[in-house]
């Protein structure tokens, strides 16, 4: 009886954790999966999102997730600028593979230093009405601070899926992902489409960062903890699949939660990455890859 209750709770916790993982990985799915750009600095943008949410929460008392939403246009613009620099300095010269990676690695450190200079190095936390309470569903207790980000993550995933599937610009991004040369022959400009997609990816970091600081304290270099996880989810999802990202993230979240509950939390990352390896061995293109 107790075990069944534990199992239900572990599954529910994993589901919620997976939603959060999806939110932090969606940007990577777009940039790495669709545009083939190894933006290793993506987690640093998420941390910027956390601090932006913190700033509005601390000064105006604004809800952190609402603050994250308000910052998405700013992050979109920042993403466009970063892509323009990257394109002019590396992509246009055909030097994107290794030097581009170095560019984003450098960007990661620059962002960390800028956050440190602006906010200091102390941990930051936010206030929100849903932090500290739990939703009780029979034997299952779900912290609101995990439930609310999960719902926002679902909305983000659904919104991005509909956008890429049904809007003109979204389909153009998918076309660039499939064959940029063919698109160029059709008279379209892949660079403009890619900068738009990059902007969308960075815009997701504003909301994902807000979720991160709702779930726990944040400090400037914390993004590094998530680099491996976001890449793993993007690859497991099938390089560029938005619904795949949600499914892959939930698989990892549930695997981590079950391992932490029944076996030992230390094994959680090993089990999660083990699932990634096995999946890639069976389906090299990832879960939703074509």
């Amino acid at each position, binding site marked *: 009886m*107790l075990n069944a209750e*534990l199992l239900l*709770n*572990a599954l529910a*916790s*994993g589901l*919620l*954790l997976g939603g*959060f993982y999806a939110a932090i990985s969606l940007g990577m799915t777009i940039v790495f999966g669709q545009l083939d750009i190894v933006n290793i600095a993506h987690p640093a943008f998420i941390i910027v999102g956390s601090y932006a949410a913190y700033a509005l929460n601390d000064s105006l008392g604004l809800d952190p997730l609402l603050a994250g939403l308000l910052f998405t246009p700013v992050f979109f613009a920042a993403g466009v600028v970063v892509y323009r620099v990257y394109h002019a300095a590396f992509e246009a010269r055909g030097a994107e593979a290794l030097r581009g990676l170095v560019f984003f690695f450098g960007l990661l450190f620059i962002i*960390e*230093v800028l956050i*440190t200079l602006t*906010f*200091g*190095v*102390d*941990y*930051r*936390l*936010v*206030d929100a009405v849903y*932090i*500290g*309470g*739990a939703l009780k569903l029979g034997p299952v*207790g779900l*912290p*609101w*601070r*995990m439930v609310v980000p999960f719902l926002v993550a679902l909305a983000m995933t659904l919104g991005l899926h509909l956008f890429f599937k049904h809007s003109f610009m979204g389909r153009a991004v998918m076309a660039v992902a499939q064959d940029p040369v063919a698109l160029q022959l059709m008279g379209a400009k892949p660079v403009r489409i890619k900068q738009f997609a990059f902007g969308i990816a960075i815009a997701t970091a504003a909301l994902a960062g807000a979720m991160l600081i709702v*779930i*726990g*304290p944040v*400090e*400037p*270099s*914390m993004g590094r*903890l*998530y680099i491996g*996880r976001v890449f793993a989810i993007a690859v497991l999802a099938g390089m560029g699949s938005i619904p795949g990202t949600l499914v892959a993230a939930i698989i990892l979240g549930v695997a981590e*939660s079950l391992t*932490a*509950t*029944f076996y*030992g*939390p*230390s094994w*959680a*990352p090993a089990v999660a990455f083990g699932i990634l390896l096995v999946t890639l061995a069976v389906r090299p293109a990832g879960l939703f890859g074509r």
Partner: protein
Amino acid sequence: MIDRVRGALLKGAMAAALAVALAVSAQPSARAEDPIKIGFGIALTGGLAAAGKAALVAIQIWAEETNASGGLLGRPVELIYYDDQTSPSTVPGIYTKLINIDDVDLVISGYGTNLIAPAMPIVMSHGYVFMGLFGLAVNERFDYPYYFQIMPAGPDPRADWSRGFFEIAAAQTPKPVTLAVTGADAEFPRQALIGVRQNAEEYGFEIVYERTYPTSTADFTPILRAINATNPDIVFVASYPPDSAGFVRAINEIGIKAKLFGGGMVGLQYSAFQSKLGSMMNGIVNYDFWVPEPTLDFPGVHEFLAKYQAVAADAGIDPLGHYLPPWAYSYVQVLGQAVEAVGSLDQTAIGEYIRANEFQTIVGPIKFGANGEWAETRMLMVQYQGIDDSGLEQFSGPGKRVVLYPEAWKSGEINYPYPGADN
């Protein structure tokens, strides 16, 4: 032509002779003015940067005060420090440079076990006295006679670190029996948990849950549920700051069954956490080093904190500074007192003096034992009591972090069992 060359040579030789004469005549007075260089690596970026920067401010306050009152041995003090980036791999290079290239006169450690241990072989090979800032059992393997560690863990640091928690638990009626233990997969929690196991055996507790978790853990509710499933009477947690916040929130969200919770939770001593976690911390029993309770009102500590707090806001560091800064001030205070007493920079003489004498500091009297740790433990166990959600101001005075252990510094009584137990 030859004359011109000879003339130039002569002028050159005269200039060189003059320069040498000037240099020689300048040397004695320059030596008196030469600063005493104190070198260290400190975390200014990376995971421990918040603590590292706060420690740096405290060390700088000490240096300014020392220089304002005439310096050490009549010479000004100069601090030479490098950012260790919270990365142990940078530490050997930093201390090699400090000793071999910067030619520092004294060395002190950066903050934390992981960043002290890598410096030890280099410092030891050069025979320097080494003041340690919050290292846990670092000297156990090195057994270096001139290592002195300021954190008041005590002679058996690993066990003494958690002894207070077990003393408090064992004193309750009926005595709790079962214990759950969890901690992060990192050096400090690992060391702390070794001590917890020792204490569990000594005080007669049965360990019913013992698991560590990776530092990248985002959600702590599964761990807490697994702990609850084993029905422990008490729970000891050795966690780093983000995890500590995760546990505090989780015990308020899904509840705990244990009667005593806490022990080794790093981060709950920081202002940022106290102001945001607020009443969620009530009832937790946790370690601390100094709190503004009347029993710990040592001379100089409030004056130091006033100076620290005046610069803390601009520096973006802990605004109250109760946890680490007084100790960062004290470990250089001890070194400074020893240098003055010995009257030279002879490392052996300084080291022997520190081993043999008691020091009066802003954190109270300090006497080091044979292994360079405090001769007697003064690890505090405090209970968070009567905290509301009004913010940080309430923590600046007494009554919110009541000292339960050691008996000599006790400032109030425990609320037992944990108020949220069985909810």
